[in-house]
């Protein structure tokens, strides 16, 4: 019984982190293709 | 600064007197909310195991303050809708008015309107929910201090969210969580004032006073930053 709750909690946290990270990476890739090289300061 | 505050307050109240938005629209809305609470919590329900008063009467202090908060949101939105129309805040700043004075003036004008709303809605709550009145002095203190807190924090946040777009939906989201302590304290102090319950109502009015002072101070300090070239 306890394990069900544990599973929900862990999936929420680590799943949430992964979803947010993937969204950030996809958005970063899409945006940076539109921004020219000389404006990409703070990216290295 | 106080002279600027006076000018601002008089200006806002003149606009209200000419347009009658608070008395003509917000007040009827508040009364409607009080009636809707009566529909949602049946007046026949009583709490098992306690006194014979209806559940509605027992919940009356909280319901009254929720109603006041909803009405205050509308009044606050109105206070800044008046300004953002044609960059009025810019004009006020150009005119050399002190930002802290503008803030205090706004707070005073909204507070006057809110007090009027609270008197009428309070009478409505007593009539509709059949609540007793144990300690009128405590009730009056609660109402005044809570109004100061609601308008001080509310004006600060309404200014943060002022602008031509999105404002209407953003103000409630920003203001209501901040006012949670006011609802808490005012609800409990009012409970003590009307029922004479065991809880120490004066402690809660003290919390309301502290809250009002904090947000008056923060507002006076922050208003200059918010208004700067916006």
């Amino acid at each position, binding site marked *: 019984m306890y394990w069900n709750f544990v599973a929900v909690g862990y999936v929420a946290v680590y799943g949430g982190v992964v979803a947010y990270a993937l969204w950030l990476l996809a958005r970063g890739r899409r945006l940076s293709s539109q921004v020219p090289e000389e404006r990409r300061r703070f*990216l290295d | 600064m106080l002279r600027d505050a006076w000018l601002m307050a008089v200006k806002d109240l003149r606009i209200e007197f000419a347009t009658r938005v608070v008395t003509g629209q917000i007040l009827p809305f508040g009364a409607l909310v009080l009636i809707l609470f009566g529909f949602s919590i049946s007046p026949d329900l009583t709490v098992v195991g306690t006194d014979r008063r209806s559940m509605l009467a027992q919940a009356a202090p909280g319901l009254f303050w929720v109603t006041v908060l909803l009405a205050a949101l509308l009044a606050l939105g109105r206070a800044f809708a008046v300004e953002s129309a044609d960059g009025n805040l810019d004009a006020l700043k150009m005119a050399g008015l002190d930002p802290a004075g503008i803030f205090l003036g706004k707070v005073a004008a909204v507070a006057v309107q809110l007090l009027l709303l609270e008197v009428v809605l309070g009478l409505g709550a007593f009539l509709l929910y059949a609540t007793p009145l144990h300690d009128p002095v405590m009730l009056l203190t609660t109402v005044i201090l809570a109004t100061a807190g609601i308008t001080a924090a509310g004006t600060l946040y309404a200014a943060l969210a002022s602008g031509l777009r999105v404002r209407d939906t953003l103000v409630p989201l920003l203001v209501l969580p901040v006012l949670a302590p006011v609802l808490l304290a005012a609800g409990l102090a009012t409970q003590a004032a009307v029922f004479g319950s065991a809880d120490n109502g004066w402690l809660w009015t003290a919390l309301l006073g502290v809250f009002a002072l904090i947000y008056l101070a923060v507002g006076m300090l922050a208003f200059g930053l918010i208004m700067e070239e916006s």
Partner: protein
Amino acid sequence: MTATSSKVTRVIGYSALAFTALALLFGLVISGPEVNMRDSVRLLYVHVPSILTAYLCFGITLVGSVIYLRNRSTFWDLVAGSAAEVGTLYLAFALITGAVWGKPTWGTYWEWDPRLTSTAVMFIMYLGYLALRRMELPHEVRSRRAAVLGVVNIINVIVVHYSVQWWRGLHQGRTFGLDPQIRDMQYFSWFLGTVALGLIAAWLIIHRFRVGWLERQLDEIHLEEALVERRGEGV
């Protein structure tokens, strides 16, 4: 590699992965159940780190907001915003894990416990901060208002915290009196969870910052293009 990653984020990212693997191994497999909470104690290895990291993020937001108000740099504005977004996400994790921990422990998902209540209110306050950052206003105006809110929010959090505590305090004692029998292995699992979620937060904040930076650049490019077009029409 992807556009917003760099050497630094790759190092942080891989160590975050390694620590996550360790945290899962120790938290779910190696460490044992606790005497009172049984296996639900494992939720605390993500719950407590989430809250701690969220507080740390809001601290960064506060610092970033104060520095922004002093020097008005895009950098600190974006730092404050990125940390607030990640902090709000972690606060959501803390609320979710707290609820699923509460169900087997207290029997309910929600208790009107002072800490729970003020955390929920704080969560909504930061949602409001993030909403303010999305308002359609000129950059400087929006950043300045966000910075003011970033500072004032901390005052709110303190006021709400104490008034809620007082509220429950006057009414009843603490809602739960569990005396956790946490042992070495459990402390270690909790520590690993903290490091893993902390590193992940750092990775997320840096990437969020870079996405924000790119968004800002793109806005400026569009503005410049619009200006050029205007001038073209004028001639």
